[in-house]
């Protein structure tokens, strides 16, 4: 099922990426090429096959409830491109 320009735009927005209008066609074509290729998978009979979620057979290990991190706001903020009063700063979000 080939994608159209609207789908490419929607997927780009979901990914928070911009696809320039003049690149839309190219992007769409490339997209369809790859999708067309992975669609080979539809040939495989997967009736009664459970999806493989994890190759690891071990059950999830549980951590003890202890405070082992924190009180290092300086390090948390050290790489921030914008910060004020100990907060990360972003353009105003209108809700």
């Amino acid at each position: 099922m080939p994608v159209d320009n609207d789908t490419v735009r929607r997927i780009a927005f979901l990914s928070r990426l911009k696809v320039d209008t003049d690149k839309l066609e190219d992007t769409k074509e490339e997209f369809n090429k790859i999708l067309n290729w992975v669609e080979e998978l539809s040939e495989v009979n997967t009736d009664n096959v459970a999806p493989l979620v994890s190759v690891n057979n071990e059950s999830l290990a549980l951590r003890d409830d202890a405070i082992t991190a924190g009180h290092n706001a300086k390090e948390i903020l050290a790489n921030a491109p914008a910060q004020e009063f100990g907060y990360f700063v972003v353009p105003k979000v209108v809700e």
Partner: protein
Amino acid sequence: MTEYVITTEKGKWEIICGLEIHCQIISQSKIFSGASTEFGDDVNENVSFVDAGMPGMLPTLNKECVHQAVKTGLGLNAVINKYSEFSRKNYFYADLPQGYQITQFQYPIVGEGAIDIDLADGTSKTIRIERMHIEQDAGKSIHDMSPTKSFIDLNRAGVGLMEIVTRPDFRSPDEAGAFLKKLRSILRYLGTCDGNMDEGSMRCDVNVSVRPYGSDELRTRCEMKNVNSVKFVMQAIESEAKRHIDVYENGGTITQETRQFDPATQTTKVMRKKEFAHDYRYFPEPDLPPLILSDEFINKIRNELVELPDAKKARFIKELGLTAYDAAVICENKETADFFEKAAKGHDAKKVANWLMGDFFAMLNEKKLELKDSPVSAENLGSLVELITSNVINGKTAKDVFALMAETGENPEKIVEERGLKQVTDTGAIEKLIDDLLASAADNVAAYRGGKVGLFGWFVGQIMKQSQGKANPQVVNALLKKKLG
């Protein structure tokens, strides 16, 4: 039960409502990191590299959060799923550092359950729980510190949440209100969530639709996010239902959307239309293998489970003879129930209940005190009731004694002893007082005997006064009746 029907000029309607409740899990550290869950610390201080979504950081699951979730599931009479999976819910937001929330989607830790709610008319109703899953909370965005910027504090990011989803079983605002109170009571009994809606540790999303009364159709529903008190939830249901009815009766249609309830105007307004709805792209969290719980793990929690409000209530009715109403009031809060049980031990439980719900609560209210800070201990309250039932003091004196207990914190025996408040049951002494009174008030005696029977109370009052309230009123009554003829 009383049916809740909205009647308009054009017809009758009923409400279909379901709730999704986010409950912050009580634990020391966050669900997927070792940072503290403490509320109110300095900005970004309770943040680990995991919570900040730093490159290469990985989640590790807190055992206590799993423990608390299983406990809660058992408290909701729900199925505990021995196999559960974590999933990622993908969306971009400033207070969501990873760009996804780790939650459970297809395989939640808790499956179907049910809890009974008690309604004002004395009936009860079963509300079905669809599921409960665990997930991480987001950070906080602060929008009112600057006209052009929003500020992000990640202290809350990664705190464990339990999301409880009900079936659309509510047919009235009252039912939803009763459910939330009951749920809060259960969570507090279990110690898995403090249930404080005003502080945001319990947050409610409300789904509402309406249908013509008596039909079984399901119409489009709207969701109101983050309603933050029981009262507001009830108001939101009512106002949203009325909006739907209004739209339908004017020939309109309701579109599925997310709305926000404004308590000030008692109305809801649209937040997000469905066409702008997120596409969350859920998929199994590859950083966390499936969670497998053993029977041993679950049974250990089951065996350690505290007695829950329903069971406690039933026991108080059956074994202690409380009325259903009194038992319900006392059992809503575990501390109250525990206090009551301590106070009632070995004493007349019904009388203890009356004192607790009457003078005792009034005293706490007046002094603006929490139960745990009460100057009157449970043991002392029990002793006071014992003094009454064993006729050591009468009811009137008991009120004075209680006031002194509240003031001094002393035990009632000591107060009664030191102040000589023991009631007089010695008939000889009372008889003497009566004889003296009848002799000195010959006019009133004559009037009474002449038919003014209303004067009887005056005689009783005089005797009580002369005995400084200590005379046993029953004895006074009996003797007076005999002597006055």
